[in-house]
């Protein structure tokens, strides 16, 4: 290992340690969570720090939860699976290490932000579900997805965006118990558009939506193959 590689490793070690320790800002936490999706070395360092520091959790005094908390959790669990897709989806999903370890925690908790944003403004009037799609390294909403029970979904851009030549944006969704994401087709950057959902099972709370960067005629593999540009989860909105 030469000197600059050793310095890089030391920096990566420090980043992983500070991520687990909790001393990074939200923005830097999200950057780490995003990088862990693809950087095995960083993920391994984070795993090691999780294990090293875990005993410190014993220093927090136990606290009794209010009696309503478990029933509330139980009500939020998704209904039994209705859709199971055979084949390699599960393997792909795992190979990408998409939802493993702390990454799962970070992305899942971005649903909190989405829920907070939805408490204000026009969201409340719309029935059905709302999703705010946010770039993984950002907290600024980039797209709002509104769904209705009639199986239509509208996608509205909140920012202008451009796509590199020979590339396209592809829209995906994945329910809690689905074996893999399903394409909702290509979407045009910066344009409002409507998409039919009639071939999909009913939407669920917490259902994942994402937009990835793909070749100009869409992913060649039928599953997301490019980087995730925007991601969010469905929140049920009562009118």
């Amino acid at each position, binding site marked *: 290992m030469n000197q600059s590689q050793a310095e890089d490793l*030391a920096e990566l*070690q*420090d980043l992983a*340690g*500070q991520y*687990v*320790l*909790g*001393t*990074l*800002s*939200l*923005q830097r*936490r999200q950057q780490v969570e995003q990088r862990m999706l693809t950087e095995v070395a960083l993920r391994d360092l984070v*795993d090691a720090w*999780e*294990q*090293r*520091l*875990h*005993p*410190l*959790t*014993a*220093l*927090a*005094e*136990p*606290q*009794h*939860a209010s009696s309503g*908390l*478990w029933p*509330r*959790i*139980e009500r*939020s*669990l*998704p209904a*039994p699976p209705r859709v199971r897709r055979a084949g390699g989806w*599960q393997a792909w999903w*795992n190979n990408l290490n*998409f*939802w*493993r*370890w*702390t990454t*799962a*925690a*970070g992305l*899942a*908790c*971005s*649903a*909190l932000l989405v829920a*907070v944003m939805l408490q204000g403004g026009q969201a409340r009037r719309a029935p059905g579900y709302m999703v705010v799609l946010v770039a993984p390294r950002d*907290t600024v909403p980039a797209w709002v997805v509104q769904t209705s029970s009639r199986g239509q979904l509208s996608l509205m851009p909140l920012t202008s965006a451009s796509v590199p030549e020979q590339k396209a944006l592809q829209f995906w969704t994945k329910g*809690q*118990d689905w074996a893999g994401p399903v394409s909702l087709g290509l979407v045009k950057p910066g344009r409002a558009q409507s998409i039919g959902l009639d071939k999909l099972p009913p939407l669920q709370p*917490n259902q994942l939506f994402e937009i990835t960067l793909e070749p100009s005629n869409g992913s060649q593999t039928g599953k997301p193959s490019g980087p995730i540009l925007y991601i969010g989860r469905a929140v049920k909105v009562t009118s």
Partner: protein
Amino acid sequence: MPDDTLSFDYEAALGACAAGDRRALERLYQNDSRYLLGVALRIVRHRAVAEDVLHDAFVSIWNRAASFDPQRGAAKGWIYSVVRHCALNNVRASQRELLGGDELDDIADEQGGDDHAGSHAMELNASLGKLDDCLAHLSEVKRASIVYAYVDGCTHGEIAARLKAPLGSVKAWIKRGLAALRECMT
């Protein structure tokens, strides 16, 4: 950690959750919710917010149970890390709403709070095992900085305020403290 968590089979519980057994998640909740709520409360510091974090973390554990990989660490550690990172993201997000991200550290640096003055002689205990030995080899300020960050979810600035120390010193203590811990634990 109390005896009742020693005999609990976390990996089996995650396996059963992945297979759709809600009772397995409930057993995990009954066994660990008080410890997990304790972990979350120290970080977010408000009981209602801590319960929200625990709610979201349990839903997340249920949804992600199938992706747990025992090759990458123990099931119990995975579960606790889901709760901790949920709490950390929550507390950092709410801090960010109030102020602009890293400005927090600078402001906290000037506050010089005293609510924890004198309490940084950490009372560690034998259950921490090897980590305890290695923490014991750190200087008191490095040890306190690391424990305040991990257990209380403190930012660099908040630690500086608690220790009445310059922000730059705290950043250096944490960086060197982590490097020393890693060295000691390998």
